[in-house]
C-alpha cells in the first residue's frame, strides 16, 4: 500500500467478457494483470500502463451444498459473501485472511493463510477443483486427480498462469457462531515462542501481537490470542449465534465514535510517539485483564481484525505503508526475529504493528509456508524514509535467507529479484517457468510484482 500506478481497468462480469479483454490485450500488444479486491499489500494486483482485469464483478456463488459443505464460486466472490452465505447452515470457510474483503480468486492466487495455518494449512488445501482459463483461450479443469501439475502451480501462482473462472472449496463444520478465546500476556519474545509451543497441539487458532517499542528484556513482549471451535452441543443456542447478524463487527468504538470516520482520528497517532503510546496501552491493558480465563467471540470478530476500522490504511497518510513478512524455520525463528526487531531499533523505524504466526509446509510449488514461524511488520512509508526502509528490509532479507526462510507475494514490496530467486530455489523456478511457457507462451500475464521479481517483461 505504498505503490501506485495507472492501468487500463476492465471489469467483465462473464467468461465471454474475460475472453474479450484477453483478445483486446493481444491486439494492442499489452500485458494483462489480474486484480481481485486489491488487498495485497504490495504490487501484486498492479499492472502499470497495461491492462488490469478486475474480477470483482465475477461474483456469483454457483453452487452450495449445506450437507457436504462444498461450495463452488466465481473468482470475484469475497470472503464476506462466502461466510455470510454458509454460516447460517453451520459452516465457516476453513481458511480466511485478516480481512473479509479479499476475493476468493485473490486468495487462491496468493494461496493465503490464516491464524490456523499450522493446523489447517493454506487456502489451497481446501480447494477441491478449479477451472483455469489461459491467455490462449483454453480452459483446464484442475484438481488433485486431474492436471495436478497445473493445480499445484496455479494455486499460489500469483495470477501468472491464467484466470480462475470457477473454484470449488470445502468448508469447515462449526457448531456455534462463537469461538472460545483466550488472551495471554507474554513479557518477552522467548515467552511468546514458549507459549506458542505449549498451545500448538490444542489450539485451533493462534496469533501473537508484539509491542515493537519495547526493548531490552521486554523485547518481543506482547499478547497471544488463542481460539478454539466450540464442540457440538456446547452452545445452547447455535441457531442464533450462527446468524449473520450475530457476527457483525461493532459500528462504533466505545459506543461513541462511528468507526467509518475513525481513521481520520487515528491519523494523529500514526507516528512514533503515538504508536508507542498505543502499543504500551494495548500491552498494559492486556496484562491487567489477563486473568487466565477464556471468553467467547464471534468468528468474524476474531478473524477479521483488519476490518474493525474501515479505511484504516488511509490513516497512514500519503506515503502509505508496507508490510514486511518473513517466514523462518522453527529452529532459527527465535534468533532471526530477535535480530529483525533489533535492526528496526537500530534504524529507528519501529514497526507500528507486528504480528506473529505459526505455519506448516504445503504441497504448492511457489509456497511461502514452511515448518516455522512468521513475523509481519507494518512500516509507515514517507517520501523521506522510503529509501532507508528499503535498506532495512534488504538487511532483514539477508538474515531470513541465511536461515532458509521464505517470503510471501501477497505482502511483499521490498524483495529484489535475487532474493526472490534465492528463497524459491532454481528447481521450483524452472518448473514454474516451464508451466508459464506452456500455459502463457506469449507472456501476456504480468504484474508489477512479476516484473520486479522475475523480470518477465
Amino acid at each position, binding site marked *: 500500500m505504498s505503490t501506485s*500506478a*495507472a492501468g487500463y481497468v476492465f471489469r467483465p462480469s462473464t467468461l465471454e467478457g474475460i475472453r474479450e479483454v484477453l483478445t483486446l490485450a493481444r491486439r494492442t500488444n*499489452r500485458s494483462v494483470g489480474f486484480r481481485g479486491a486489491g488487498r495485497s499489500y504490495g504490487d501484486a494486483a498492479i499492472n*502499470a*500502463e*497495461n491492462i488490469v482485469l478486475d474480477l470483482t464483478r465475477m461474483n456469483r456463488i454457483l453452487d452450495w451444498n449445506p450437507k457436504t459443505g462444498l461450495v463452488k464460486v466465481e473468482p470475484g466472490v469475497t470472503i464476506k459473501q462466502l461466510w455470510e452465505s454458509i454460516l447460517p447452515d453451520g459452516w465457516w470457510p476453513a481458511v480466511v485472511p485478516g480481512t473479509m474483503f479479499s476475493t476468493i480468486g485473490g486468495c487462491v492466487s496468493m494461496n493465503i493463510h490464516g491464524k490456523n495455518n499450522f493446523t489447517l494449512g493454506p487456502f489451497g488445501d481446501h480447494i477441491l477443483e478449479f477451472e483455469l482459463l489461459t491467455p490462449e483461450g483454453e480452459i483446464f479443469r484442475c484438481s488433485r486427480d486431474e492436471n495436478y501439475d497445473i493445480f499445484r502451480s496455479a494455486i499460489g501462482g500469483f495470477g501468472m498462469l491464467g484466470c480462475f473462472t470457477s473454484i470449488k472449496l470445502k468448508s469447515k463444520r462449526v457448531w456455534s457462531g462463537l469461538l472460545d478465546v483466550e488472551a495471554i500476556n507474554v513479557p518477552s519474545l522467548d515467552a511468546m515462542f514458549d507459549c506458542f509451543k505449549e498451545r500448538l497441539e490444542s489450539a485451533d487458532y493462534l496469533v501473537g501481537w508484539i509491542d515493537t517499542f519495547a526493548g531490552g528484556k521486554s523485547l518481543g513482549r506482547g499478547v497471544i490470542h488463542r481460539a478454539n471451535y466450540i464442540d457440538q452441543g456446547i452452545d445452547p443456542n447455535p441457531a442464533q449465534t450462527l446468524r449473520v447478524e450475530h457476527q457483525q463487527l461493532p459500528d462504533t468504538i466505545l459506543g461513541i465514535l462511528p468507526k467509518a470516520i475513525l481513521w481520520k482520528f487515528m491519523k494523529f497517532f500514526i507516528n512514533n510517539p503515538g504508536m508507542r503510546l498505543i502499543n504500551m496501552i494495548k500491552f498494559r491493558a492486556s496484562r491487567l485483564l489477563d486473568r487466565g480465563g477464556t471468553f467467547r467471540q464471534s468468528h468474524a470478530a476474531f478473524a477479521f481484525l483488519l476490518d474493525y476500522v474501515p479505511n484504516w490504511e488511509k490513516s497512514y497518510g500519503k506515503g502509505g505503508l508496507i508490510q514486511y513478512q518473513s517466514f523462518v524455520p522453527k529452529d532459527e525463528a527465535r534468533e532471526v526475529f530477535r535480530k529483525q526487531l533489533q535492526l528496526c531499533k537500530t534504524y529507528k523505524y519501529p514497526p507500528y504493528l507486528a504480528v506473529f504466526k505459526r505455519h506448516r509446509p504445503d504441497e504448492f510449488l511457489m509456497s511461502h509456508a514452511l515448518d516455522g514461524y512468521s513475523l509481519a511488520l507494518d512500516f509507515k512509508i514517507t517520501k523521506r524514509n522510503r529509501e532507508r526502509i528499503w535498506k532495512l528490509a534488504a538487511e532483514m532479507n539477508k538474515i531470513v535467507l541465511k536461515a532458509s526462510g521464505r517470503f510471501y507475494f501477497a505482502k511483499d514490496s521490498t524483495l529484489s529479484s535475487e532474493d526472490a530467486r534465492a528463497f524459491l530455489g532454481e528447481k521450483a523456478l524452472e518448473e514454474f517457468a516451464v508451466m508459464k511457457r506452456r500455459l502463457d507462451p506469449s507472456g501476456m500475464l504480468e504484474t508489477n510484482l512479476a516484473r520486479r521479481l522475475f523480470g518477465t517483461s
Partner: protein
Amino acid sequence: MPDKITKAIVVGASSGIGAAIGERLVTQGAQVALLARREEELYALCNRINEHRGEDLALPVVHDVRERKTIPGLFQDITTRLGGLDAIFFTAGVMPHVEPDEYSTDKDALMIEVNTIGAMAWFNEASKRFERLNKGRIVGISSIAGDRGRRRNPAYSTSKAAMNTYLESLRNRLGVKGVSVTTIKPGFVDTAMTKGMSGLLWMISPEKAAGKIVRAAEKKKNTAYVPGQWRLVGTIIRSIPSFLFKRLNI
C-alpha cells in the same frame, strides 16, 4: 522540495525551446518522449542527448500535431513505453512571416491548427489521465504575444491568447484535483522563430529558457514569464488603453 519530473512528454521538440526542455529533463535523469515532425533533426537530437547522458532516456517519436486523430492512441502508446507520466510540455508552435498588409487565411489557419488546436488535443489526453490520478503537470508554452492583439501577426497573437484562456480554464478544472497547469510566457528566445529579427529586448538562449520553464513546472506556478522581468512589461502592456495602444508600434 518540489517533486522531480521523472517521466515527461515534450511536443515540438526537434529544435528551439522544446529541444532544450527535452535535454534539460534528461540531464535531470528523466525519461522523456520527444515529439516532432522533422524526423532527421529529432533522431539526431535524441542520439546526441542519449550519448551525452550515457543511457537511453530520450525517446524520439515522429508526429505532426495536425494529425489530430492519431493523438489519443499515440498518447497511450507513449505512456506505456515510458511506464507512466508526470508532465507534458507543449512547445510546438509556428509563426510564418506575415506582411503588414497581408491577410492570409491559410497562414492564419495553420497557426491556429498547430499552436492552439494541437495544444488542446494533447492537453485533453493528458487531462483525462491526470484528472483520474489526481496528479500531473501540464505546461503550455504560450507567448507574451498573447497578452494583447498585436498589429504584426494577428493570428499568432490570437493563437497564443486562445491558449492562455484554455490553460486558465484547465487550471480551474484540474487545480482542485491536484494537477498543476502552468502557462509559460517567454519573451524573446534565440530560436528559429526569432531568426533575422534585430534589436530584440532581453533575448535569452533556449537552454536558459528551458531551465526556467522546468523550474516553473516543478514549482507548480500558474503563470511564468521567461525571463521574469517580462512580467512587469506584460502588466504594463496589458494595461495600456486601446486608444493609445493602436497608435503604438508594438
